[in-house]
């Protein structure tokens, strides 16, 4: 066979590319459902971890269904748009954040732990090298923090990446995000020795200041969307 003419080369390349494309399309569609299930399971795991639920060797999906009793969709004026649990879960928060504040759909997960209501809000932000994200669980008063979960894509190992560790996440426990006048102020993440004048604070990570500040910004911006919702009292003590 003459492999030297251009026609041969062209046909060879075309056939090869078509075969490879078909193969990849087949693999991708065959594995799609398993992959989506993995992503959803991972999200449920993160939501549970924000409440420090012991998830070791447990059926995550089942545990999620038990603990997270409700998930609602609200807007920035705290009007409830939907009470469908699946719809709230499926909201693409990053996409919503590119819209105007009034148009955003905001998911709120409502969980029951030992008979007490917890509200879980979604956090998305930008760290030093890439995206950071997490969940914050608030107590029934919508003011004190019950637990936090943070993760990151590519923060510096051993420094900024420590936001994903329990030691940093536990620093937030019991802190308040509203001030005495019931206004939303979030929480400061400050270098040792610095004090935040108008709100409660925690220590930043040494060597991970930019990532720590990114967490502070993420908390302020993401929880800030829920400002009106957080102010509402629901019969509980404030």
């Amino acid at each position, binding site marked *: 066979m003459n492999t030297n003419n251009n026609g041969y080369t062209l046909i060879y390349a075309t056939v090869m590319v078509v075969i490879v494309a078909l193969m990849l399309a087949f693999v991708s569609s065959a594995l799609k459902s398993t992959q989506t299930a993995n992503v959803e399971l991972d999200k449920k795991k993160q939501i549970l971890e924000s409440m420090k639920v012991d998830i070791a060797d447990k059926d995550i999906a089942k545990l999620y269904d038990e603990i997270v009793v409700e998930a609602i969709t609200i807007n920035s004026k705290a009007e409830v748009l939907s009470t469908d649990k699946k719809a709230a879960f499926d909201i693409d928060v990053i996409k919503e954040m590119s819209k105007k504040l009034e148009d955003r759909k905001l998911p709120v997960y409502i969980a029951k732990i030992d008979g007490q209501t917890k509200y879980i809000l979604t956090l998305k932000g930008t760290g030093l090298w890439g995206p950071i994200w997490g969940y914050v669980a608030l107590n029934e008063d919508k003011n004190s923090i019950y637990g936090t979960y943070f993760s990151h894509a590519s923060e510096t*190992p051993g420094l900024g990446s420590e936001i994903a560790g329990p030691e940093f996440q536990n620093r937030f426990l019991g802190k308040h995000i509203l001030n005495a006048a019931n206004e939303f102020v979030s929480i400061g993440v400050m270098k040792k020795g610095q004090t935040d004048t108008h709100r409660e604070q925690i220590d930043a990570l040494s060597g991970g200041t930019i990532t720590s500040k990114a967490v502070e910004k993420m908390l302020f911006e993401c929880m800030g969307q829920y400002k009106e919702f957080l102010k509402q009292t629901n019969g509980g003590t404030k």
Partner: protein
Amino acid sequence: MMSKLFSNKIKEVFLGPFGKNNPVTVQVLGICSALAVTSKLEPAIVMGLSVTIIVAFSNVIISLLRNTIHNRIRIIVQLVVVAALVTVVSEFLKAFAYDVSVQLSVYIGLIITNCILMGRLEAFAMGNKPWESFVDGLGNGLGYAWILVAVAFFRELFGSGTLLGFKVIPQAMYDAGYANNGLMILPPMALILVACIIWIQRARNKELQEK
């Protein structure tokens, strides 16, 4: 037939990359990923296996095609084969080892640019039969993998006090004042550990020493 499948040449093709011809410590290829994924043992093992599978099978495919590929487009053909295999492996990891695929993030995709792959395809698979090429790919992949695993073993042990996520350094040691070495988790330490392996290997192997 069996003797042909496991002849001395085959043995050398397979075992060479573990020692005298190691892709990482002797040819100094694939260093980038060796630095990036070795702070924990588990991603290092998965990365090593992924590379092994991809080198072995892309070697076989290129070797089967070698007489039909025109010289002008050989690099393109090699790249398409490698890229397709990498994508398949990455999709499988996302479906069946989600946590690890998150940890490995971009580095699975970057296997495409791993010099070991193109090196083996150009230097070996283009001129050898499929079986030899398969063994060569397996040897080189595992030669790369064992360095990654060795580096990751020390980095995770001294950097986090764990192995594969299990605590191995007893709490009593920490109570007595022992602390994890943060430098171990940072990329420079991977370079220093690889250098130590190269040092030991050269000290024991006269052939590798430059005059």
